[in-house]
Every structure is written in structure tokens, then in C-alpha cells.
């Protein structure tokens, strides 16, 4: 049998926690980035702008990205954000690789890690070729 004083303490604690929660949840949502905005949008690029071996920097869904026209293998779209600490990788055309200027992480043209500290490959974005257009996303 719970005493009246104990019961009131539980009720008060419950009310306090509810009040705190009803303040903290909106605060957390307020500071959380708006997810999904524009993620359904596709980006169209004229493929004639990118010769074989060439590249084009784009911003796709807020992520700095790069389109590469690989010799023999065709187009690929990769995020330029290094998976180590978020620096932007540089495309080294002559060496057919990407190099991160921060910790010298090296990726091949498929985005796979060749050497250095990056823990994962560069994210790749979906790409379709429709006539002269590259449809990304």
C-alpha cells in the first residue's frame, strides 16, 4: 500500500518529467537538420560537357560531388567528401586517382580506398544516361 505522500511524490515526479520531456523533444527537433529536403530531386547534366578522362564538379543533395568520364568504363558520380575526416578529395587525372589533401587518403576511380586512413569507399550516386543527358539520383 503506497502512502499518500509517496503517491504525491510519484505524481509530481511524473508531471515534472513530462514537462521536461515536452520541452526537450521540441528543442531536439528544433536543432535537428531537416532531413530529406530535396532528396527526391534529380540532377541533369549534359554529358558532352565531360570528355573522356574529364570531370565535372557538382553539388548533389548538398554534397559536393564529382562526375568522371572514365576511359573504357564510362561515367560515374561519386561524393567528393573523404570518408576519413570530411575534406574534399582532388581528382588527379594523370594518376587516375583521387587524393585527399588532409591525410593523403587515396581512392581509385571507382571510389575504393587504395591507401591511407579512410575507413570506407567514396559514396556513389545512381546515374542514368538518357540521350545526351546524365540523370543523377
Amino acid at each position, binding site marked *: 500500500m503506497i502512502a499518500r505522500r509517496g503517491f504525491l511524490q510519484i505524481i509530481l515526479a511524473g508531471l515534472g518529467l513530462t514537462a521536461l520531456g515536452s520541452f526537450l523533444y521540441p528543442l531536439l527537433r528544433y536543432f*535537428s*537538420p531537416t532531413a530529406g529536403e530535396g532528396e527526391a530531386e534529380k540532377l541533369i547534366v549534359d554529358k558532352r560537357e565531360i570528355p573522356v578522362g574529364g570531370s565535372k564538379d557538382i553539388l548533389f543533395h*548538398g*554534397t559536393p560531388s564529382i562526375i568522371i568520364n572514365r576511359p573504357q568504363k564510362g561515367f560515374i558520380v561519386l561524393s567528393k567528401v573523404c570518408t576519413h575526416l*570530411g575534406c574534399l578529395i582532388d581528382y588527379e587525372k594523370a594518376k587516375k586517382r583521387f587524393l585527399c589533401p*588532409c591525410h593523403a587518403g587515396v581512392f581509385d576511380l571507382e571510389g575504393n580506398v587504395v591507401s591511407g586512413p579512410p*575507413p570506407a569507399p567514396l559514396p556513389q550516386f545512381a546515374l542514368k544516361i538518357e540521350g545526351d543527358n546524365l540523370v543523377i539520383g
Partner: protein
Amino acid sequence: MLKAIKNWIEVRIGLDELVRDQLTEYRIPRNINLFYSLGTVAIAAFSIQVLTGIVLLVYYVPHPDHAFKSVQGIMMDVPYGWLFRQVHAVGSNLLVIVVALHMLSVFFMKSYAKPREMTWLVGFAMLLLTLTFCLSGYLLPWSQLSYWATTIVTNMPTAFPYIGDYLTEFQRGSSQVSGATLGRFFALHVMLLPALLVMLLGIHLFLIRRIGISRPPFGPGGQERVEWTQFHHESYPDGMPFYPHYIAKEVFMIMVYLSAMFFIIAFLPTLFSPADANIPADPFKTPAHIKPEWYFLAPYQMLRVIPSKFLGITLQMIAITVLFFWPFLDRKEERNILKRPVLLGGFIGALLVWIGLTIWGNF
């Protein structure tokens, strides 16, 4: 007239008694050394940051399209703007040095020992807040250096599985460092962090005065041990008066601090602002050889040396946690570190590793 005003206040709050209890009759150990003044120097340095920060707020615009220009305007167009900005920028670096030296001296003299564990915890939290202060302020000029250094540091949580990406986006307010990041870092830098730091500083000072200042373990009386089974205020009736004796030493150390600051501003103005600090942020181009601020260089270099990012960051978190809870891990009675070769060796070794990584990270 002045006497009448003083008397008016005296009648209401007992000013004479306050001065007597808190300054002239307040006594501290005779073997106290200059390192004890670093706390006061840190308070003075923080006050300078607050004052210059308020002055800079008048012209600074926290928007990606205007932030860099507004800072350049402060440096080039606003009369003496360069002075206030340089004092703020150089002062932030010196503040980190002063707070770090204060923590090192407290560690070296084992002033964290019972009953002062809480004082250490609050002090350590203030060190972390100071670093957060520097990190949030570093982004505000919106230069290449500030943009990419912030990118690197805010990317660190991605090492943790499941929640890492969310934590990084939560800090930034977007997937990349952007205007949203600038907005929240600005709010953090000018409102939340100062309020938190002042609150912690209040608790820190309260604990120091309530428990009593610790006696250095070196020199006369240094080896005296007090059994601490119940609370009592540790006082030194034969000690040195806080005012004017010790305050004179503290003022001297503040002068040394100001001399160092103005020496750097006058003769080494670019010491803490390399070339990339004068180029506006370009979110599409990471500059070659980008580095964070010097005090983050050791952990940055560690991430370069250790191949696994998760392992590197976990090791750093463990090191911070161990240091934070150090008063509870160090159970030895001996306070003189010179009589504890293992601890002394570890202390010097850790310091050398940190300095070595910082220097290495520069190249």
C-alpha cells in the same frame, strides 16, 4: 563625498567586514608559488575575451555571404578594429595556454586530491568548454582555414557506428558545414558557452573558497597531512595575507600575460593566422595541407598515425575520460610527484608525446 558614499554602502552591506574577511585577513599558505596565480590570469584572460567579443559583435555579421567581409571590414576599415580583433584572436590562443598550464600545475602539485575532487572536475569541464569556445569562434570569420578546420573537427563523431553521422549533422545543422553551422556556432559562441562558463567559474571559485586553497607539496609545511573525515575549512592562520601580498603577485602575472599578448600582436601578428585565414571559405575546395588550430594538432596527427579512425578517436576519448576522473583513480597518499617516479615519468612522457605530435602535425 566619497566617504559619505562609502559609509552609505558600509551601513547596508558591511563593506569593511567583507574586505577584512575576503582580502586582508584571508590568509594563504606561505609556500604558495606563482603557478597558483594562473587561475586568476585565466579569469583575466577570459574577461578580455568577453569585452573584445562584445566590441566585435557590433560589426560582425553571422551570415556566410557577409561574415568574411565583415571581419575584413573590422580589420581594415573600422578604427582600431584590427586591435580588438587581434586581442580577441591572439587572446583565445593564449587563454588555452594559460588554462592548460593551470591544469598541468594542479596535476603536478596534486591539488586535486581529497577533498578537492569536485574542484578538479569543474576545472576540467571548463578546459573542455574553453576548447569548444575556440572551436566555435574559429568558424566565425568564414575563411578557408576556419571552414575546413571546422569540417575536420566536426567530422570526428562519424567514427562511431550508428549515431556518428547523426551527431555530425546535429552539430552542423546540415550534412556539410554551411550557413546553418555558422548560425548555431555563433549562438553557441556568444550566448550559451559564456553563460555555462560563468556558471562553472562561479562553482569553481565557490569550491576553492569553501574548502580552502590547497597547500603546495613542496617547501615548508608541504608534507603536512590533514586527516579528512568530515568537512572543515582548511585555513592557514600563520599564512600570507591575500591582500596585498598575493594579489601583487597575481597582478604581476597578469602583466606578464598582457606583455606576451601585445608582443605577439606587435611583432608576430600572423602567428595564429596563416595565409588560408585570409581567403574566404570555399566549400568546394579543400586547401592543401589544411590543419586545425595548434591545440587540436596532436589529436589530428594521432588520427593520421593510427590507421583506424574509430580506434584513434576512441583512444582520445579514453584519455580524456581518464584525465577527467584522475582524482578518483590516483589513490596514493604521497602528494609530492617528485617522490613518485612512475607518475612523474608518465606525466613527462605524456607531455612529450603531446608536444611531439603537435610539432609533427605541423608538417
